[in-house]
């Protein structure tokens, strides 16, 4: 009987996530505020259904009472996040909150299935991180001074990365983590955010060539330190994010072209200079040739995705555990194996919806600094998702980064939560701005929506009449 339930459950899960994903995009086209509200609520219902069905299956297979408590705690957590955000910040973007919760839910499901212990640990970090995340929008709102510390961010970022490069423990062939007082941290995860602040601060000051040159040099130091620490995934994320931010700030295609040309040259140089880069590329070319060696992980990931097909094997019917460090870099393969290719495509689309929202928010902010921050954080997120999913499918060489909100890894989780919270803060800031303008003009403007996809409705363009 259990098998029948698992078998049916996988179709139900797929149907639910398809409905959820469809609503993410339909929301962009709904103009009526009430209808949108209703849609977001419905998304929450769908999310809880997915959560329930998945945990029912997990319970049937694991038969541990603890699981029921864990499930309850998760439901409470999700409810709390939704309720708190809605009430503390009624102006927050509900689509982003929903997507965040949805991704966290998928993470809960897969982590619990892979390792209950890991999942509980992750849950604790999640709760702590969420508390921090709840405060952040306030900070953003109140502390305008944050915009003027560009040099401080640069020193902090480079300092932290430098410290890692010098003192870090080597894990999986890369220097990543730093242990302070018993807590192991991956500073590069946090430096990402600091880095975005630094670049935004510098570029908001001026986009004169001299200033751009100084900023580029400092950004290059970040990237170089990461390359030396062999954290190639992060190096790539920093690099692309910087280029995109530079382009948005200067609107000058020449910078973008020069940047990508330099990047291409650097990649080729890295291939010949660093053996670990060569290894990654060789594995990407043919993971089966070095099956016993480095190719094993990618090969197993491909086997997992292949075994999953469109509909997945069903929870506990696959063997994602065969992939080494599946819970971090290859979470996507695990999801695809057990929940199916369609589920994974929806997951990609949900991530895309987050990204679109980030960029959308960025476009509508008036102050340069905030606009660049929002855009930079969006890029960080987008590039990271691309690298980890592309790597797991062998579409691009594996770079070893996590899938935000779904993979284990406290630092990654915390930094993603913080990014999401900052974006929320900026979003609220924008709504505040609007309100002020509205009050000045004593004119209540009701038709201005959070997520008008594709519109370039800058707030200051709204008053031609």
């Amino acid at each position, binding site marked *: *009987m*259990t*098998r*029948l339930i698992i*078998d049916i459950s996988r179709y139900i899960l797929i149907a639910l996530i398809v409905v959820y994903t469809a609503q993410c995009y339909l929301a962009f086209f709904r103009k009526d505020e009430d209808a949108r509200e209703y849609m977001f609520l419905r998304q929450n219902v769908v999310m809880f259904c997915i959560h329930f069905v998945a945990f029912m299956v997990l319970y049937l297979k694991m038969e541990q009472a603890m699981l029921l408590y864990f499930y309850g705690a998760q439901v409470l957590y999700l409810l709390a996040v939704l309720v708190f955000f809605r009430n503390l910040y009624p102006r927050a973007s509900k689509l982003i909150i929903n997507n965040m919760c949805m991704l966290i839910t998928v993470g809960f499901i897969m982590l619990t299935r892979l390792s209950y212990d890991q999942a509980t640990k992750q849950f604790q970090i999640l709760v702590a991180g969420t508390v921090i995340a709840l405060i952040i929008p306030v900070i953003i709102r109140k502390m305008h001074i944050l915009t003027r510390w560009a040099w401080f961010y640069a020193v902090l970022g480079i300092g932290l990365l430098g410290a890692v490069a010098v003192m870090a423990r080597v894990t999986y062939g890369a220097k990543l983590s730093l242990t302070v007082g018993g807590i192991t941290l991956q500073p590069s995860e946090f430096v990402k955010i600091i880095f975005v602040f630094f670049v935004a601060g510098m570029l908001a000051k001026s986009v004169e060539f001299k200033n751009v040159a100084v900023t580029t040099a400092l950004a290059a130091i970040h990237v170089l330190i990461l390359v030396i620490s062999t954290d190639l995934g992060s190096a790539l994320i920093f690099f692309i994010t910087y280029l995109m931010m530079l382009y948005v700030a200067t609107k000058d295609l020449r910078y973008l072209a020069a940047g990508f040309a330099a990047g291409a040259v650097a990649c080729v140089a890295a291939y010949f200079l660093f053996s670990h880069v060569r290894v990654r590329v060789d594995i990407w070319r043919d993971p*089966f040739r070095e*099956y016993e060696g480095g190719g094993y992980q990618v*090969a197993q990931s*491909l*086997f*997992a*995705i*292949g*075994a999953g*097909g*469109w509909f997945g094997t069903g929870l506990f*019917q*696959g*063997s994602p555990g*065969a992939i080494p460090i599946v819970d971090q870099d290859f979470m996507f393969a695990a999801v*695809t194996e057990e929940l199916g*290719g369609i589920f*994974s*495509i929806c997951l*990609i*689309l949900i*991530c*895309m919806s987050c*990204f679109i929202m980030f960029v959308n928010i960025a476009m509508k902010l008036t102050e340069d600094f905030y606009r660049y921050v929002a855009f930079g954080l969006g890029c960080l997120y*987008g590039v990271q*998702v*691309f690298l980890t*999913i*592309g790597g797991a*499918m062998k*579409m691009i060489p594996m770079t070893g980064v996590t899938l935000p909100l779904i993979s284990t890894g406290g630092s990654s989780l915390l930094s993603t939560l913080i990014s999401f919270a900052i974006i929320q803060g900026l979003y609220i800031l924008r709504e505040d701005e609007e309100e002020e303008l509205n009050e000045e003009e004593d004119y209540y403007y009701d038709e201005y929506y959070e997520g008008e996809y594709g519109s370039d409705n800058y707030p200051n363009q709204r008053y031609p009449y």
Partner: protein
Amino acid sequence: MFLSLAGYLIYFNIEKRDEINSNANNTKQESKQEQIIRGSILSADGEILAGTNVDEEGNETRLYPFDNVFAHVVGYATNGKAGVEAEANFDLLSCHASILDQVRNHGLDTKVRGDNVVLTLDSKLQRACYDALGSYSGAVVVVEPDTGKILAMVSKPDFNPNTISSDWETLISDSSNSSLFNRALQGQYPPGSTFKILTTLAYLREHPDDYQSFGYDCNGSISRDTVRITCYGGEVHGHVDLESAFVHSCNGAFAEMGMGLDNEAFKNVCEDFMFNTELPIGLPSSKSLFSLEKGASYGEEMMTAIGQGNTVASPLEMALVAASVANGGNMMKPYYIDRLETYDGDVVKEYRPSVYREVMSTEEAALLADLMTKTVEQGTAKKLSGQSYTAAGKTGSAEYETGEEQGTHSWFIGYSNVNDPDLAIAVIAENGGSGSSTAVPIAKQIFDSYYYNYYGE
């Protein structure tokens, strides 16, 4: 960017999934054995070659009713996997039975039956080949010329897949027999005089108008530089033209021919026939090799022309050469799985014949067919003549030396029913002496049993 990810995942599922799922290192299928009873492997005539028996307590045993006869093709599923058991592992552990069936079985928590794999091999012909090869080490491959279907494939020494677990230690420690090795696909033998078919083709291409004026006086041997080549058994053929040189397999004449050939062009002919290329068969196989560079010595050229020297070929390769002649110059892509079926007989997937390449013109094929027919009528393969069926072919007596040991492999490649060929065949009996004395009678026994129904209708 995100859409490219989604797009790639879709592409992966459509294009690459099968390849990944049947990768030899993929162990994902093992877990499916808990829900699916491994499907059967059937012969084209419906005999069960491998099947899973389930006793009352639910214990499963894999049975191979034909014991050693299909050993290498069907392979085994314990102690690792080989043959069809390995290549079709994913299909055998997939179930395409109706959803209703599957749901019912899931509801009852009983296993469903995996799909069956139906081979192109015919159990009667396979048995005939197995018996005909007798106690010789070697291989027999039978191909249907106009489809590329492999109808029989035997390799000896062999093993019994039913007792493979208990025999395992002996099998892997015995390096002199290498019984697990499928000689039909993985054997690399000097092709000997069977290779003269390709030498002749290369000669025809360089002398399209005057090949009939070829002449050579055979006095039993030919020497150039330090290399001396004799005709098999010291025979003296006297004056030969192209036809009689081929029919009587005169080494001197072909050595002379070989020295006049453009080596590059010769190599191209052979590479068209899949030398130096992986055979597109989907089972572990060895490449057949041909290497003759510009400026090779006369010795090398002479040796290569008579199928000695550095040239090696697998039995399937040589069967395909014969099949191409039989099929008027079109080489068909060889295949051994005819279709996949559900356990209750609904077809899941069917494999169709496809042309691999046109390796020669119809006229060239007709000329070679004529030479091969005359070889049976009056030459080295005369033992095949005078039957109710007609045949064509070429013998080979390939000399080999491995360490201390030296001897002669006995080859025959050819086909039956000259006007509308039924079976293309390659026979090799290791250390069997001349082609005429051993391989030809083996081929005859196989053709006889096919046309005279020795193994039943």
